[in-house]
């Protein structure tokens, strides 16, 4: 009998139905950090995953769409994409930021960035450096973040595209199990790290990363206005919120320190960089 797992984030409920033993095992291995509950109740969105005839299958019942994949890493990627998309698209209870996050001492270090800027690779480095992993894709900030800096996050495995694998391979303890043509799913145990146990954290620091192979290392503090520009360009559900969430976000960047990080590879990061980050947390 298929198992239904219920994911509830910012007022949006998503049920993931695992239709086979293989699908159940994949979900358990890759999405353990979602900390969801087995359920029989209806959800806003229903997704099903299966493994049949050597192919992985994803069904998005809401969109009436069925897709097959040859690799488990690609199924994991598209399943997490559907979860993240539906939360960001439907919620009116949170500011959704396209950002990774790691945690230290109950504070979140937020890493907002566009796709391709090295956000996930840098997140791998942060996890192997001892920070607890939260997400590499979506942050849910309290709707009244000017009064309460708390946030939640949507867990997914760290997603590394094939062209980025070489950069993170030196950080890995063992081989990637769930590979794909689109992305490879990296779980924190492969980095010798841990998932964050706390589902709710306070925002403590923003780091805006940019990988540039020709760059050295720069870690520079941003003014609130510069940080505000960067935050709004990574705010993904502004249209759902009163005043597009602009005033609340501006209040947040006044309270939380923000830095840009430009680096040309992990070998360019100073030996004490993890300590530098920890000290910058407010």
């Amino acid at each position, binding site marked *: 009998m298929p198992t239904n797992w219920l994911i509830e984030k910012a007022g949006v409920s998503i049920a993931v139905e695992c239709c086979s033993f293989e699908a159940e095992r994949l979900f358990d291995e890759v999405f353990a950090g979602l900390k969801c509950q087995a359920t029989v109740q209806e959800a806003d969105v229903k997704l099903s995953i299966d493994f049949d005839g050597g192919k992985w299958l994803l069904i998005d019942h809401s969109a009436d769409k069925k897709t097959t994949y040859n690799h488990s890493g690609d199924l994991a990627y598209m399943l997490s994409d559907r979860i993240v998309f539906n939360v960001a698209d439907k919620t009116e209870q949170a500011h959704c930021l396209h950002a990774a996050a790691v945690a230290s001492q109950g504070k979140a270090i937020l890493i907002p960035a566009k796709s391709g800027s090295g956000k996930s690779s840098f997140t791998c480095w942060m996890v192997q450096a001892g920070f607890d992993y939260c997400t590499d894709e979506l942050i849910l900030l309290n709707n009244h973040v000017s009064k309460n800096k708390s946030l939640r996050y949507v867990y997914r495995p760290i997603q590394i595209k094939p062209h980025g694998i070489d950069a993170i391979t030196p950080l890995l303890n063992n081989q990637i199990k769930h590979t794909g043509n689109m992305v490879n799913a990296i779980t924190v145990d492969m980095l010798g790290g841990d998932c964050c146990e706390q589902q709710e954290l306070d925002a403590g620091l923003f780091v805006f990363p940019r990988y540039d192979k020709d760059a050295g290392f720069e870690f520079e503090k941003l003014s609130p*206005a510069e940080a*505000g*520009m960067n935050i*709004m360009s990574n705010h993904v559900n502004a249209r759902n919120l009163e005043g597009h969430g*602009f*005033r609340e976000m501006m209040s947040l960047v006044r309270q939380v320190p923000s830095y840009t990080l430009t680096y040309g590879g992990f070998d360019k990061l100073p030996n004490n960089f993890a300590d530098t980050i920890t000290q910058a947390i407010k």
Partner: protein
Amino acid sequence: MNTNIVYKKNSNCLIEDMDGELLVYDPESATTLHLNNSSMIVLELCDGKRSLTEIIRLVQEAYPGQSEEVEADILALVEDLTSRQVLQAIYP
């Protein structure tokens, strides 16, 4: 550029003073603009009453000896802000 035109801020845009720097958010395009101190002054002067000629004169008085640069900078800024729909022209 016709400097007799009066400009006003687009009332749909959200403007936030961030400790001496200005951020302007346009909900229509979901874009944010970062303005420096001198751009802030020009934006404030675009109040729907003063013409562009008056604004240029006021800023030139504040920066004597830089008349040509001031005029060129203001014209370029107003053109840019108008194209981004932060400013709206009111034709006489």
